């Protein structure tokens, strides 16, 4: 491969790229920021955003750090996007505090921005769309404890220490436990939202605790990891996760997983993008939609079985009714 060939290679790639970009020609362009390319939750957000944009005949551009959850990278991407000047931005901060300067850059460029999923610590937003992690944790934990009859040995598997979602979810878990004095919290260990880590933490906990009745995991991946550990040790316990991912829904269907708090990335993506477009079109919007906590269980999982790709965004009226407040 000679220098010239390399040059040709480069040119062709970028030619293709320009054609690709040219495809986003008409309608508003909405830049959608998510945390990483690996977590299914954010894939759901992206699909939701695309669905909404498609419905309203707008275009989305996705910006995702190449290193998962990288703060410097998302900052750089914001700076680059500000140059590109999309009509509006739908924004999930990789860190709700450290990304504030980025938000301020967007504000300074007067690009309307909708904040979804993690509530940014500061900055001007058209609106916030998210789920209430606290009540989500609380409700899902309550469901498990109710099923246990308000007693039993419980372990919590936490997500990434200090991440907004995890702090609130774990707080929800603990409050639910407080409501049920019959329960005993054996351990609360971090699995960093990682399946493997959760699996190995669980394996070790199983050994140090002969009797575990319930497992509260801060996300579905960790819940599934815990389930694998339990099966591996031929032990049984009720497990709940949070996010309501496809995987979790299947597991609920097959009875492995008791329940999953529906974090509903698809809706967040949908509504967030819808609001962004409406605000551009000078249509009325609401300053905040915090999705009501819903717990996916054996009773109601069917409605979640339709793959996100083939789901449709709710109408604006329905969307506004989704809000808890």
């Amino acid at each position, binding site marked *: 491969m000679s220098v010239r060939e390399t040059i040709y290679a480069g040119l062709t790639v970028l030619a293709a790229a320009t054609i690709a970009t040219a495809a986003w020609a008409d309608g508003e362009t909405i830049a959608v920021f998510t945390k990483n390319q*690996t977590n299914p939750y954010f894939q759901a957000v992206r699909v939701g955003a695309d669905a909404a944009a498609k419905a309203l005949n707008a275009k989305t551009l996705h910006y995702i750090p190449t290193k998962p959850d990288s703060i410097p990278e998302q900052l750089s991407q914001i700076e680059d996007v500000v140059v590109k000047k999309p009509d509006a931005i739908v924004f999930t901060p990789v860190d709700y505090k450290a990304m504030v300067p980025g938000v301020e850059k967007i504000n300074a460029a007067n690009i309307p921005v909708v904040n979804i999923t993690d509530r940014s610590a500061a900055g001007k937003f058209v609106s916030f769309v998210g789920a209430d992690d606290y009540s989500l944790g609380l409700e899902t934990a309550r469901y498990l404890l109710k099923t246990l009859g308000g007693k039993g040995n419980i372990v919590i598997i936490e997500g990434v220490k200090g991440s907004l979602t995890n702090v609130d979810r774990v707080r929800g878990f603990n409050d639910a436990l407080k409501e049920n004095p019959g329960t005993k919290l054996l351990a609360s260990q971090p699995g*960093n939202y990682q399946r493997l880590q959760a699996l*190995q933490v669980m394996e070790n906990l199983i*050994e*140090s605790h002969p009797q575990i009745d319930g497992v509260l995991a801060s996300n579905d991946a960790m819940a599934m*990891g815990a389930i*694998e550990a339990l099966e*591996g040790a031929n032990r049984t316990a009720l497990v709940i996760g949070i996010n309501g991912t496809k995987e979790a829904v299947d597991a609920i269907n097959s009875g492995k997983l008791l329940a999953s708090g529906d974090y509903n990335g698809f809706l967040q993506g949908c509504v967030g993008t819808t609001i962004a477009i409406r605000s551009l079109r000078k249509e009325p919007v609401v300053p905040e939609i915090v999705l009501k906590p819903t717990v996916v269980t054996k009773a109601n999982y069917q409605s979640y079985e339709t793959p996100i790709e083939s789901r449709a965004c709710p109408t604006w009226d329905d969307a506004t009714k989704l809000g808890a407040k």
Partner: protein
Amino acid sequence: MTDITKQAFAPARAFMSDDLLQVFYRLAAALLICLALAILSDSFLNLGNILNVLRQASLLFFIASGLTLVVLTAGLDLSVGANVALSACLAGTVIHQTGSPALGVLAALATGGIIGLLNGLMVTALRIPSFIATYGMLWVLNGLTYWYMAGEIIHGFPAAFRQIGSGYLFGLPIPVYLLLIFLSIGTIFAQRTIWGQEIYAIGANPVAARLSGIPLSRRLLLVYAVSGTMAGLASIIFLARLNSAEADIGESLTLPAIAAVLIGGTSLFGGVGTVFGTFVGALILTLVLNGMNLLSVNASWQPLVTGVIVILAVWLDIKARRRGE
């Protein structure tokens, strides 16, 4: 004169006797850690926990064993983690499409092997330092995996297949049997085949090895291919253990694997080390993490402790060798 002494004092010779001595030190260290844990935590010494440690160590070992060969040739493979991820995802797909675990295993081994071969070609044909070549490969593989998985998770595999990861045979986890099998294969390959000898010779002095009639490029290709294939194998075990494939499965694996190799007494200068040592290295790392879980030590301390152990192990080696001269 001076460089003779340097040579003589730096990576010591590859006698069985010496290596056995080095490994013996390490086993002793591992036993000391066990002793300490047994005293500190009553749940350490029960069979289930020991099996956990072995099973978790085996996951680390499969990656590290292939890496050991690469390091023996004074090279490095930073792409193993990304390799595991891509192999797992492709294998997962194949199993889902065909329903045949066998084909899945083949797919994983093939993917891993091809990636290894590409690494080897970059090092031999393009003469790119392995450190950089495999770092580039790491990004390329991540890109492919992210693109291929698009944030989805492949989950739910045939029970028969999952036995590989979570099953038991005569009361021992199946991964432990695999561990023993590949530990012996690896040891025989390195110590008791002429290819192994040639690999040691290449590590000790590539120029001399080549001028002694050893087919340098072909052997290096072999080594990188083996390393890649072992990553492919590891991906299967992960797949079966986690019962799912996701894009970030390998992210956190590479540095621990390298650490295991180094703690195992394999010298980065090449020509010195054993596969068994790497196993002990993996064991030590796993014991430490297991202990921290059992004693519910704040997870934040784990990287710190690992770091200290790596330095300590290698430093003691160097001291021992200096005394040996």
